[in-house]
């Protein structure tokens, strides 16, 4: 089967970039930022899924069924490390989004608009 997750991950990244470049609303820009990061998260998880090049990978959970055949389990299971990395990265992403949204609230209170083209004091 053609691995569909890589194109989807890259597509998500590109949609995020598009959002950041062409949307004229700060909230939508934050959504773009989330899409962009999640595209990379999907990519990272897919790397863990495909890294061993096995046909039907299994979750990396050692159940009793596998106790007799540890080597097969090791060869068949997906790499758990990228999943852990993505979890860490998601937590970091949450704090970025929280900070971004709080900035948006302050900007809205100050200017009464969310259009980035109307908020331009810094130039040059």
């Amino acid at each position, binding site marked *: 089967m053609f691995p569909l997750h890589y194109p989807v991950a890259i597509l998500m990244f590109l949609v995020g970039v598009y959002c950041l470049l062409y949307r004229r609303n700060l909230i939508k820009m934050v959504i773009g930022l989330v899409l962009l990061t999640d595209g*990379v998260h999907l990519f990272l998880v897919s790397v863990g899924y495909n890294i061993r090049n096995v046909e039907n990978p299994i979750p990396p959970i050692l159940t009793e069924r596998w106790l007799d055949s540890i080597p097969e389990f090791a060869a068949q299971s997906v790499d758990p490390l*990228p999943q852990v990395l993505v979890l860490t990265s998601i937590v970091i992403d949450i704090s*970025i989004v929280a900070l971004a949204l709080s900035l948006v609230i302050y900007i809205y209170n100050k200017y009464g608009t969310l259009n980035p083209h109307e908020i331009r004091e810094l130039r040059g």
Partner: protein
Amino acid sequence: MMWFAARISEHLPIFAVAIPLLGGFVTPLIGILGERWSSIKAVDYFALIIAVLTFLTMIPLARGVIGGGEIFVYELAGRIPPWGISLAVDGLSILAGLIAAGITLAVVIFSIGFMKKEEGLDKYYLLLLIMCAGMIGISFTADIFNLYVFFEIMSISSYALVAYYRTGRSLEGSFKYLIMGTIGTVSILWGIAIVYGAVGTLNIADLSVRLVAVSEIAAGVPLSIIFALALFVAGFGLKIGMVPLHAWLPDAYQAAPAPISAVLAGGTTVVGVAALLRVTYLLFDALAIGYMFIGLGLITMVIGSFIALVQEDLKRLLAYSGISQMGYILLGVGLGGLGGIGVSEAILGFEGGMFHLLNNAIYKPLLFLCAGAVIYRVGTSNMEEIGGLAKKMPVTAATFLIGVLALAGIPPLNGFASKWLIYVTGVQVNQPILTVIAVVVSGLTLAYLLKAFTMVFLGPVPAKFENVGKVPVSLQIPMLALAALCIVFGILPGLGLELVGPAWEPLFDHVPYVEAVLGGVIP
């Protein structure tokens, strides 16, 4: 007591990260207690103690690495590399760590006077100390994902600090910085995903060994690895304000409180360069990174200084000149990494680049702190409005002049010593055109900085600033200390070269670092 000291010294690398991190989170608590016992200064002094302690942990490490040529490896939770996270302190790490801790210390002292009219100081110091922990973590870690995490810790706290005043400008600068910075860190994460997919390890030393093996098996560097290199360069380059990824930098520097601009200019950019060099030279040595850095360095240097010429705001001008100085550093290390040249030329180039990195971390914060002192007294950094402050603020004027001359590369100040090394390397590798460009840009630097000095400190005093007084002592101490360092490293460049000596070694020869981290066993 001896036993205790020995225990402590074993764990110094983790203390260097943990002290500012935990100290930062205790600061709000101290703020609450201080309010209850009505001692307003408690937070400031607590932050000062933490900053001093952090700097003190660096000193034994620096003595071991720079004096003894050792590489300290600290395995977190006793996991053996390449499986666990480990901290490795070599020359490059300790240079970046010393700079980060030193600037944090200077800035905390400066902030005691500078920020005293502001509210929410406990949060300010919290973010500042966490940023310091992030910077030291980036310098010390030997795990590439851990590097990304520390990078985010540093970045998020700096986004929040830029928005500290919550005026229109600072919110706008901070939001711009947040968007651009996140794109940068995400591209670093993507790069990590690609190299992990290629070799299945996260330890930097292990990656260095295995990526070379991958290129050998494939008889050439695979396209995905080149893409990963591009992502890393874009990500770290964004943080150090490399042209064409610099758009956020002047806005953020202008909008941030002056001490924070100093940390951004002297701290985060320096650790950004250290991380960039560590990752590119250790992981992607098979590619022609030297040419890439020379190209990027030249563009950064020229464009930064041309835009700086037309600025009217002092902090914005300094921000663009900071971009331009990053170009010199990249040019120096790029010349050193140029394949097919003699060993002595390569060493000269690396030495010049790293020495300039150190010098830049001295005079750039100095200039931003002077700008801060001006803002503290007159309330604006628009150069059109101010003038003649030399009579009113002699210490600020003198230290600013030292910073200006050092930055422009006038002997006998430190900027001259490092720029000279870069010029000489350019000639020795038969690329005199690079030297010519660097010298011309240096002239431009002198021009715009002298323009700034004249506008701010010379000429008639505007009527509304007749009553401007001198700046308080706590603002003067860090300025005088940094100015003194400019002179010391200028008169005794050997001292500076000794300090940066071990810093370029990991770029030139990976084997000691790899062996130290992997415990002598190369898989």
